[in-house]
């Protein structure tokens, strides 16, 4: 839910990374954290288990420059991908402005992607939202892995509606910024068009 504060002259927007367990949501955010200039980023908060699996969420605030006196911030969140953390996933979606669905390109994760995407639709419905209502970007991650699903097949199964989609190797940063740029620009466009 974008929030405009006229007194502190701030605009805040929330971007959520969604996807099946171990698809690379946290890796996306960690790459962004490591690469952006120190003055533009806040603290990276990670609520993870001892095994480094996301328990509740990761959070990273990013600050754009000041435009016409307004400071614009993007708050990046990841959800826990594991199936049994559904209650936490639902909470993170509250007030979302834009969603990145990180799909795992590996053949073995085919069903997990479908299940997670279906789960996203279900959870959005709880907030009376649909992916059509907000900027939605699909990232096909792990394109460097040996056994991966063809891009066409992924598109056919996960993206028949033709939402913006990108290939990525989040661990090395390929496609990470492009994904974020696509969703961030989508949010700004939506704000100025309303």
């Amino acid at each position, binding site marked *: *839910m*974008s*929030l*405009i*504060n*006229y*007194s*502190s002259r701030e*605009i*805040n927007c*929330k971007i959520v990374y969604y996807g099946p367990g171990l698809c690379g949501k946290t890796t996306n955010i960690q790459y*962004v954290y490591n*690469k*952006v*200039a120190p003055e*533009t980023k*806040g*603290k990276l*908060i990670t*609520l993870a288990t001892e095994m480094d699996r996301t328990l*509740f*969420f990761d*959070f990273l*605030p*990013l600050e*754009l*420059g000041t*435009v*016409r006196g*307004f400071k*614009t*911030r993007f*708050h990046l*969140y990841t959800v826990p991908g594991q199936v049994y953390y559904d*209650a*936490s996933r639902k*909470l*993170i979606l*509250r*007030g979302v402005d834009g969603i990145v669905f990180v799909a795992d390109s590996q053949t073995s994760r085919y069903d997990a992607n479908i299940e997670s995407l279906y789960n996203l639709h279900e959870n959005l419905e709880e907030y009376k939202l649909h992916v059509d209502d907000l900027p939605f970007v699909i990232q096909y991650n792990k394109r460097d892995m040996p056994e991966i699903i063809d891009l066409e097949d992924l598109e056919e199964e996960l993206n028949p509606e033709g939402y913006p989609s990108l290939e990525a190797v989040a661990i090395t*940063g390929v496609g990470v*910024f492009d994904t*974020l*740029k696509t969703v*961030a*620009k989508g949010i*700004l*466009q939506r*704000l*100025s*068009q*309303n």
Partner: protein
Amino acid sequence: MVKADWTIYEEDYWAINSVLKELLKNSNSQSVLLIDKTGQMIASVGLEPDFDLMSFASLCAADFEANSQLAKLIGEKDFTTLYHQGSDESMYLSKVASHIILVVLFNKRTTLGLVRLRVKKAVEGLNTILSTLFDKLEYENEDLKEFDEEFAEELTKEIDALFSD
């Protein structure tokens, strides 16, 4: 033209701020913060905490939401207040209107009883201000002329600059 999901105008901000300041003084606490349930900071008064406020706000919202779900599981509608006791610093959180959280940080200079009492009064004041604010948003359907496509273009340039490998 920008349409936010919600907006705080200057006059509302100052009205909110004065309630927070009064609470800070009357409860003898360290800091008082107002956060929305999506984890965004609205206002803060008192000692500037030496931690990252953005992270603090997002964790408070998550804390409140997680507890609200716990309440539902045990058959309660909601937990409207939460209290976290530390050996030196403590926190008292209270729900305001439908989606705002008031957070009071305090130490041994005051007591939980006093904080709780003063928060109750402050919540009443904030509820009045916020319900007027939400009504205003509903009826005015805010038309924020300061933001137009040019504004979005300028921000887009900022995005390109920030997210470059």
